[in-house]
């Protein structure tokens, strides 16, 4: 049985940990003091890179690498903390904000020191009223204690934090959409490049980090890189010669919801399998697992054939899915996949910001097609034209079969792929919202096609058994690239021979 490994959440349940005094008793701000006393800013940035910390917001981009893109000669630079946690199925940042906001402030302080930043904006999701209240109180306390403001603890650093509530748009969790919203404009993502690291808030270099990423910093500084890299796994990236290390180190706040007995946030080392995770969350509620969404609603779905997939950034990328924000939704045999997709598509059609053409008009179209299928009005044609193939006599000819064509399923896949192509991983949109729409649409359809066909054939939603509903891996293109990555140590051994 896998045990929780609480680091970020270690003191979450301590009464009044949200106050400065209690936080201070639990090593609070000592890591920041250590950072200032023992390390130069550049050393800290290198440490974060060496620790292999990957951004926890969704993209899983190496934090140290991102910091290296920020030009240190342009003033001012900004830190923007993304607390606009809006991916359906994700709820981990919220607990940090509500229960332990000083941890976030300490992370921000370390980042500001490492990057020479004086101003931080925390963009909080508008619905997190309690979280914002707690954070604001904590910021006030930190100012009073001299950890924020001018000349922090007599170190000569000036660090200010401003918290800013969002107004409830999903797209404002996208980093450039967030920046636009923060600047007081309509929350619409920007074209990239330039990336925020070069031109971000007010067109100045900006580090945009998720709450969870920043909360990892105190522990990397406090316990050292070596301690941190022992958690999780480090894979080898064999595309490079010699193979490069691809770290998936540290812990992750997995938000488990759906058909499990004890849903909630679990802090676990990166790289556990789906099966292990369901076990941690009190086991499955129901008979068998039908599907698992591994990283928030925009991630491609995993079938019961893929439950051995490790839930870390690299493994899920290779499984043609993503860890994203770590919002894991488990579905049992009673769930209808068409219905699930409709639910998700309604959300995305509502949240499309409307800036660029494919997403503005493609997303509601995809929703309408799924709606039509769910309403039992999906189109199906039985084609009576001869189907060519090898006949019983072993020659080419009419096999006597008729072909059934589900026009709406082809249309659904085609329209979704026109917004963003999931096979080539290219999108015609400005931001990755496009792929967040087409990823679920195409993966649900390809992996659970029998259920979609049943809905059209029977003119109503039909929930098939797990075995019937799922397309086996060997028959489906959607699984094709899936293989289990080798750990870096193993690869190094074989290459050294």
């Amino acid at each position, binding site marked *: 049985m896998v045990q929780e490994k609480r680091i970020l959440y270690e003191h979450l349940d301590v009464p009044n940990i949200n106050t400065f005094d209690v936080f201070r008793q639990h090593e609070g701000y000592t890591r920041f003091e250590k950072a200032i006393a023992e390390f130069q800013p550049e050393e800290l940035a290198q440490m974060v890179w060496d620790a292999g910390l990957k951004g926890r917001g969704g993209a899983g981009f190496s934090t140290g690498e991102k910091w290296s893109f920020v030009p240190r000669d342009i003033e001012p630079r900004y830190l923007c903390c993304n607390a606009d946690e809006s991916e359906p199925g994700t709820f981990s940042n919220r607990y940090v904000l509500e229960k332990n906001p000083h941890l976030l402030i300490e992370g921000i302080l370390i980042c500001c020191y490492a990057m020479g930043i004086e101003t931080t904006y925390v963009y909080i999701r508008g619905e997190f009223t309690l979280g914002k209240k707690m954070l604001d109180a904590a910021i006030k306390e930190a100012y009073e204690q001299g950890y924020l403001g001018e000349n922090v603890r007599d170190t000569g650093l000036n660090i200010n934090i401003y918290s800013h509530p969002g107004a409830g*748009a999903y797209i404002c969790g996208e980093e450039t959409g967030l920046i636009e919203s923060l600047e007081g404009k309509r929350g619409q993502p920007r074209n990239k490049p330039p990336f925020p690291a070069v031109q971000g808030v007010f067109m100045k270099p900006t580090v945009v980090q998720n709450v969870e990423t920043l909360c990892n910093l105190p522990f990397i500084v406090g316990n050292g890189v070596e301690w941190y890299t022992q958690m999780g796994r480090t894979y080898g990236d064999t595309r*490079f010669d010699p193979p490069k290390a691809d770290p998936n180190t540290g812990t992750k706040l997995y938000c488990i919801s759906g058909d499990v007995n004890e849903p909630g946030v679990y802090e676990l080392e990166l790289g556990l399998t789906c099966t292990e995770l369901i076990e941690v969350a009190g086991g499955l509620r129901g008979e068998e697992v039908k599907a698992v969404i591994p990283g928030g609603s925009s991630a491609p779905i995993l079938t019961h054939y893929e439950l051995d997939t490790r839930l870390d950034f690299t493994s899920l990328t290779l499984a043609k899915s993503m860890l994203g924000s770590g919002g894991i939704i488990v579905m049992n045999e009673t769930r209808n996949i068409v219905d699930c997709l409709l639910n998700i598509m309604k959300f995305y*059609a509502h949240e499309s910001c*409307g800036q660029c*053409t*494919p997403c503005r008009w493609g997303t509601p179209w995809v929703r309408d097609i799924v709606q039509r299928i769910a309403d039992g009005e999906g189109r199906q044609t039985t084609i009576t034209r001869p189907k060519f193939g090898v006949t019983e006599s072993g020659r080419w000819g009419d096999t006597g079969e008729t072909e059934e064509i589900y026009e709406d399923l082809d249309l659904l896949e085609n329209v979704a792929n026109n917004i963003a192509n999931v096979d080539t991983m290219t999108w015609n949109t*400005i931001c990755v919202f496009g792929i967040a729409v087409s990823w679920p649409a195409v993966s649900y359809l390809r992996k659970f096609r029998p259920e979609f066909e049943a809905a059209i054939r029977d003119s109503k939603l039909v929930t098939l058994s797990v075995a019937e509903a799922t397309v086996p891996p060997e028959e489906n293109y959607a699984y094709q690239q899936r293989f289990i990555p080798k750990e870096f140590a193993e690869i190094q051994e074989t290459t050294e021979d």
Partner: protein
Amino acid sequence: MAFIKLNDLEIEVEDGTNIVEAAREQGIEVPHYCYHAGLSRPANCRMCLVEPYGPIPGAPPGTIGPARQLATGCTLTVRSAPPERKLEDKYDAIVRTDSPRVIKAREDILEFLLVHHPLDCPVCDQAGECDLQDFSYRHGHDKSRYLEVKNVPPKKDLGPDVLLYSTRCIVCTRCIRFCDEVSGSGELGLINRGSHDEIDIPRSHEGTPIQLLDNKLAGNVVDICPVGALISKDFLFKSRPWFMEKTNSVCSGCSVGCNVTVEYKADGLYRIKPRFHEDINQHWMCDDGRLGYHYVNSDDRLQLPLKKVDDELSTTQWADALTLITEKLSEVEENDVVVIGSAQATNEDNFVLQQFAHDVLKTTQLGLFGQQLGEEHKYPQFTIEADKNPNTAGARTILGSANGNVVLEGEALWEKVAGAKVVYLVSGAPDRPLEDAEREALEKVEFLIVQDVLPSAVTELADVVLPGTTFAEKDGTFTNSTGWVQRIRKTVDPPGEAQADWEITQQLAKRLGGEIDYHFAGEIAIAISENVEGYGDATHQNIGDTGVKLD
């Protein structure tokens, strides 16, 4: 300069040129909607996707291939690269606009654009000059796969001259960016979200407008709208674009001298649209100029000469009017005649007038009937000048070009007029009111000859009125306030027996024994270029469509 490979062409372009412009120079179309050369580039229509080439990650160094993602041609700018970053050792960029991926992407985007479009081309004003129509025809599907209900946002009245057919809108935001960046007035914005995006003006909760789109540059949003969403009320349902003739000309509304295209049919002018000129008006013009053409089509236009009989003006024949004038002019001393040129007339008109005064009437004191001052409007990227005459600078120079000529303006002129017996006044400014001093001076004149296009304050006082022509009915040149000499061209025929101002003056000169003999305006321009200082290059041939800047 950047050396790039565009499709199979090897071309050199300026640093910072984007692919849409680089391709346009080569005659290659990269379809686009949101991109406009005069505005910022949000790249939101995604129509101009092109395929850039670059090093392939993970492949051996020097391997060039198409990038994983297509890039928008409007934001993809090329500039000279350092030697180590050249592609294939010589190119600064390699871009394809015709690869299968690009062609498919265009088809896909067009399909999305047409999903909610009403396809009401038969009743749409834009049909015929619509980018959505043209690009659909050239790059799109022939069938729609969309079965669902289309969005039907309401039609909106945005301002004095602009209507918004929201159903046709493709939300390219050109109009919003125009109001933010060029006019700086920011009346337009987006409301709602996603597929319900609509362009709108600020409104109260009840829907009553708080601010209308009524700045003096508002008409430009109709021009830049790539589809038929923004429509000019002035032009609504008047004509199909393909029925109209188009002629390049210059706006006569003020001394900026915006380059325009005059669109007309045999029965008059229909529309004036701005034409790009980098140093004068860029892509824009103001609504005063745009909508100020109506007087050309007016039914009140002077068609025959008028003669005052018993204090009433009545029509007469050219021969009669000219004889009457010749008689009067030959009777008076040269000091008793004042010839007044016009800042509304072309350089050619004024030059012939000046020759007539100097050579035939032997008078050196000429007047300039200008001073039509309005309000100056300054916008972040555009200025409407206070001087409402198109040719003040030109008229001043040309009238004073001959030896000893003095050009009188303002009080000095009206003093002189008050003491004169015969005044020959070329006006052409139909809306110009007369001040009291001017009226008094003109009333004292024994015999007042006025050349004008419409009945006006000065024609009322005249003894003989000669029908002249507007900017739309003659050839010639205007000199704007910044010293650009630009051509206006004849579009429609003048009404009735009206004639170009220089032709009238020339006939008078001939009757008085003068030796002025020009056949067309270009000939006068050559004479100007030979005789007037600074106008050496300003022949019609040199001026062309872009103008000549004076030294």
